[in-house]
């Protein structure tokens, strides 16, 4: 039997506001427990929420970035349930009238195909605090620093058909929220979290199968593994004659499996109703227009511009615009180095990215910032150094504060482009290799590379490779 996988994602993106969604407390990550929780965040008696308009603006930007409907009259509702890290006994969220309605995003898959994924809605809500289980033996602590941090919950249609598609979609949203600067996207710190609704059905069936929801996956790698595990589990269940139960499951990365958290029967009746402490949010066209004006160039538009303006290939342009930091880095280096676009692009996606990967860091954390990287590209571009030497210089820059020129001067790495100097070295090499010369002249042209290598060695790698090749051919002919 052929099975089709159906996946929808709910992504919680923490909005990058300075203060919380309903209080003036700071949202900064990593402070001492409960130092960023005021009376409102603690749910003290009599305190009231006041909406942070900045969160509203960010949600509207998201709607603009995904061509989604904007809920011009949107309403906060209370989601009622008891949990120690939920101070009021309810979460302020949105239910019937969310701030962002249906929209869509285009996702480029690994094979280059473009898939359109529908967005059902996105709504504003407050984050809960954290239960701390390991600080006090036998007791649980509650840290409410995170309580009240604004979240945008982005709900997709069940449009994905594989774990890879789901990851590609999640990456796309991740890129988008960082592009429009509404979320820092830091998955380790929980700024960007995914829940996956997964079901399977026989190929060709149009009715959805019973789904399981995998909660709080905090890396793309785990998302892919969690979905793949879950798909296999569900297919095994159905093929062995059992049924999938609707339930919430947790992904355990250590064991690489999903585990049941609670079933539908144990699910809370959240008793949503409009929050009487908050007025409906009315969004007028003037505000939307104002936000539209300050929207940055979005990935698709930027990619198209990179192709037309810099004559990059579609593939290179897509890679360079996949996230805003990379595209900004590229444009900055391009503008200041004078190097051709293709060269800058290759050096970023090749040498720079491989070093970032090796150190497991993001571009935003690179030790070689755009200005120093630009200095290096300028010297490659004006033939001061060869690409090979440039790689060594980049290694040195990686672990020091030096710029490329300083290293070049200090180590005398300037490329030799003086013809007479190169010719002198060529003559010495030819003189030292009479038998190879004879063979070459008898037609063994493969020996050219041998001579190139010898001269390069003599120049300690500094001979301009293009010039060397040309001069050598002439000289070898005799």
């Amino acid at each position: 039997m052929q099975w089709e996988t159906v996946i929808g994602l709910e992504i919680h993106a923490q909005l990058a506001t300075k203060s919380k969604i309903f209080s003036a407390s700071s949202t900064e990550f990593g402070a001492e427990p409960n130092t960023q929780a005021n009376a409102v965040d603690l749910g003290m008696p009599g305190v009231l929420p006041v909406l942070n308009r900045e969160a509203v603006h960010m949600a509207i930007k998201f709607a603009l970035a995904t061509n989604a409907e904007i809920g011009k009259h949107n309403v906060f509702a209370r989601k009622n349930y008891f949990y120690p890290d939920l101070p009021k006994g309810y979460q302020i969220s949105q239910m019937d009238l969310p701030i962002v309605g249906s929209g869509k995003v285009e996702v480029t898959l690994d094979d280059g195909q473009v898939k359109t994924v529908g967005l059902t809605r996105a709504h504003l809500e407050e984050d809960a605090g954290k239960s701390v289980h390991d600080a006090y033996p036998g007791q649980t602590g509650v840290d409410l620093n995170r309580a009240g941090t604004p979240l945008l919950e982005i709900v997709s249609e069940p449009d994905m058909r594989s774990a890879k598609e789901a990851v590609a979609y999640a990456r796309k949203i991740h890129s988008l929220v960082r592009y429009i600067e509404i979320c820092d996207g830091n998955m380790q710190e929980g700024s960007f979290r995914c829940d996956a609704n997964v079901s399977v059905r026989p190929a060709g069936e149009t009715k959805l199968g019973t789904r399981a929801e995998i909660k709080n996956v905090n890396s793309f790698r785990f998302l892919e593994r969690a979905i793949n595990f879950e798909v296999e589990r569900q297919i095994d269940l159905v093929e062995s004659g059992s049924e999938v139960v609707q339930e919430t499951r947790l992904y355990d990365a250590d064991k690489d499996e999903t585990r049941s958290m609670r079933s539908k029967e144990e699910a809370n009746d959240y008793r949503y109703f409009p929050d009487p402490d908050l007025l409906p949010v009315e969004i007028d066209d003037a505000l939307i227009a104002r936000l539209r004006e300050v929207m940055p160039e979005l990935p698709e538009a930027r990619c198209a511009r990179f192709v037309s303006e810099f004559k990059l290939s579609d593939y290179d342009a897509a890679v360079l615009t996949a996230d805003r930091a990379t595209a900004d880095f590229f444009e900055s280096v391009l503008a200041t180095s004078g190097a051709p676009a293709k060269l800058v692009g290759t050096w970023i996606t090749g040498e720079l990215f491989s070093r970032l990967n090796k150190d497991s860091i993001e571009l935003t954390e690179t030790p070689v910032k755009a200005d120093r990287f630009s200095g290096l590209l300028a010297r490659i571009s004006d033939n001061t150094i060869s690409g090979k030497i440039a790689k060594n210089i980049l290694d040195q820059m990686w672990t020091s504060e030096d710029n490329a020129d300083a290293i070049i001067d200090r180590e005398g790495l300037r490329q030799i482009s003086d013809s007479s100097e190169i010719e002198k070295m060529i003559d010495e090499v030819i003189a030292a290799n009479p038998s190879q010369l004879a063979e070459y002249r008898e037609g063994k042209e493969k020996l050219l590379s041998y001579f190139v290598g010898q001269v390069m060695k003599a120049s300690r790698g500094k001979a301009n490779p293009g010039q060397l090749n040309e001069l050598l051919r002439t000289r070898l002919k005799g």
Partner: protein
Amino acid sequence: MHKDTIATIRQNLASGQYSSTELCQHLLERIAAHKDINAFIEVNAEHALDAAGKADERRAAGAAEPLLGVPIAHKDIFCTRGVRTTCGSRMLENFVPPYNATVVDKLNAAGSVSLGKTNMDEFAMGSSNENSYFGAVANPWDTSRVPGGSSGGSAAAVAARLVPATTGTDTGGSIRQPAAFCGITGIKPTYGRVSRYGMIAFASSLDQGGAMATTAEDCALLLDSMAGFDENDSTSIDQPVDDYSGELNNSVKGLKIGLPKQYFGSDLSAAIADTLQQAIAELTKLGATFIDIDLQNQHLAVPAYYVVAPAECSSNLSRFDGVRYGHRCADPVDLEDLYKRSRAEGFGREVKRRILIGTYALSAGYYDAYYIKAQKIRNLISQDFTKAFAQVDMILGPTTPTPAFKLNENTSDPVAMYLNDIFTIPANLAGLPGISVPCGLVDNLPVGLQLVGNYFKEAQLLNVAHQFQQVTDWHTKMPASIT
């Protein structure tokens, strides 16, 4: 001096007739001597005398805030920094807020001196003050009777002349009904006129803080300092506050007052109806005209209220879970045990009843039939008022169907108890301002007339009540025991 109104106290403090310290000392002694009324949950004599002393010093130094040195008391629903705030509940028996309610801050800034916190039905749920964890309050007119609720302590304290004025809150009549039962004046402003910040929530869309005193003039003086927009309360309304005390002496000539036929039917005792007719005659003499009006959906107000208010309370009271503050049961074995026992022990019967009703009304499958329907009724009731206010300036009726009933008379029949608020609830559902004014005695028990105004017409209500009090003396009547 305990019989002095705020208006008189202001003059006497200004002229040096007595100091705030002397006045507060005297009232604190009276409070101590009338413990049997149980009007106060907390009396903070030291704190009060300190504040009075400072007020006297400030006055000597030339300060002249509108309520400088004037003693008041807060209903124990308003959070007071450093002073225990219980909301009449065991749940908050030891709760000391680290912040002031906006109302408290505003009245402090106006120079008033708080003598303590007044008794109330637990979480403002009740019409008799019998639901207080700190014991029932006696009606000073007849200590075998209730003072009304939920602001029963605030009303009884003023009626017994323990303090000239108090704050109260009104969700379904909790200022106006006890004011009527205790023979004092009490105003519930328009929803959104007085900040709810720091006022412990019962039903957020209905709760409104207000003033209680012997006269409309004193209510105006208090409200002058209480009302106004608060950026900490999203439902407070950003519009200028009228000069309540400045408009008291406007003429009422030409005023059109509506008499809803639904307020003068069989629900109303004949004796109260008589007092209302006398009041109507007085107001007619002052130049007001009366028009019969129809508020056709009034009969739906109590049922709609008892869906909306419990629904909101079931959510508002979820925060009392024994985790961060408030009552926590001894030795919980696990989280569920902590929740269950803390809440079972911390809340009283009526509070639990309403949490259960509200939880039911909001639950899946019942939400549309109860909560949504109640909201529709609420709209209909508001529309009735809107139509009426196209014809009339304000509406007159009784505050309560009967005078104060006996302690324990209604405790076994919740619905009978709920029906006490039949005339006051509609104004809460519509968010309109209402005032209760003493208008007679029935069997030596005070009764009140209620005026309901259009949105933000507090000044007009206080003006009419004040003019009425210029030609009547019901507001000067006191329980016989007071000398």
